[in-house]
């Protein structure tokens, strides 16, 4: 449709990451409806952003994972210092694993669409949940509720909106499927996302 579309990559990336200013979303989406070039570029940008988030998150938690095999093979430690090293290492390992509220595990729920639950998080960690609020009625904040698979509420709070996104931390949770429900402050349910907290393998 548009032979000389002038939407630049930065604009597409802003939309893909939810950082586009509110007033620019409508004209962009209207253009998107009829511009196959932008649809293709946005699809590629979505893939790229999602992949970079996953890879960056893995790199950030990488040192923890690399440390574990060493801890599992205390035979490599000289015999006399073995017990002491194992005790110290185990203490360090536990303190790093129990990262607490200051180092939550980030879970991006923007990509959770349709019936499938694709977002995963480890059990026993604080979680930094990130919601995509694009297309919701504007509000400075929303009531967010987290429920278990059978609908039992496990957490709720008022969460401020940051542009078209909201980030918030939730305490350590047991393995299982959870749903995050976004309500207007007045009580109207607006959206629901699912994610799975995985137990140790």
């Amino acid at each position, binding site marked *: 449709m*548009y*032979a*000389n*579309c002038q*939407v630049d990559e*930065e*604009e597409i990336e*802003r939309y893909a*990451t939810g*950082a586009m*200013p509110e007033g*620019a979303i*409508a*004209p*962009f*989406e*209207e*253009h*998107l*409806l*009829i*511009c*196959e070039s932008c*649809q*293709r570029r*946005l*699809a*590629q940008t*979505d893939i*790229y*952003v*999602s*992949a*970079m*988030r*996953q*890879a*960056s*998150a*893995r*790199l950030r938690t990488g040192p923890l994972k690399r440390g574990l095999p060493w801890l599992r093979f205390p035979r490599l430690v000289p015999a006399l210092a073995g017990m002491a090293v194992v005790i110290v290492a185990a203490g360090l390992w536990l303190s790093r694993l129990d990262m607490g509220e200051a180092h939550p595990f*980030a879970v991006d729920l923007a990509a959770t*669409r*349709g*019936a*499938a*639950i*694709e977002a995963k998080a480890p059990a026993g960690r604080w979680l930094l949940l*990130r919601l995509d609020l694009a*297309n919701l009625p504007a509000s400075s904040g929303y009531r967010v509720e987290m429920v278990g*698979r*059978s*609908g039992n509420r496990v957490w709720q709070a008022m969460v401020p909106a940051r542009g078209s*996104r909201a*980030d918030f931390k939730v305490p350590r949770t047991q393995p299982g499927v959870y*749903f995050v429900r976004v309500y207007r402050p007045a009580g109207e*349910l607006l*959206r*629901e996302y699912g994610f*799975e907290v995985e137990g140790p393998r």
Partner: protein
Amino acid sequence: MNSTAMEPVMNSADPPWSGLVEQIRNGDSSALEQMYRIFSTGIRFYLCRQLGPQDLDDKVHDVFLIIVQSIQKGELREPERLMGYVRTIVRRQVAAQIDDNVKARRNQADLDFGMTLSDHHPNPERSAIEHQNAELAMRVLNSLPKRDREVLARFYLEEQPPARICREMDLTETQFRLIKSRAKARFGELGKTRFSRRNGFRS
């Protein structure tokens, strides 16, 4: 680094919406075909991005029917605003679908005492593709200097504003953009064949 509000992208190639809307109101089947040609891919893309690929053909069909019927009832008062009207209807349908999903999930929770009524696991092929893409991104990140990796993690993972990243990491706006665009170009090179093969929203 300021994000400027985007101007509506209109040019001489824009279809004459008023004429098209008038023809649809008069029941002209060629106008219906033309509108379907213009909007069906975009509607499909938007629905797929928001709701996933399930029952996509049916959803596109439903949206198209709603649009045509409301035009024929005269509910589109400003024909030149056809694109905005289509977008509004698509967004309403997305919201309605999400509402339906939530209600269905509530009903499922009411019924559910250990039995599974629907498959919550992701499509294995899609999971494999996502895993491969994350591996590609990992290769890109591992090939970069530590500082560039930090810039990308701050931007994509922590969603820090570009101005803050530039300030805290002593970067100019151009350097910041270059780091991002080089990484993206590298990712594109590595995944070129897959990108060209897979566009999930296509029918």
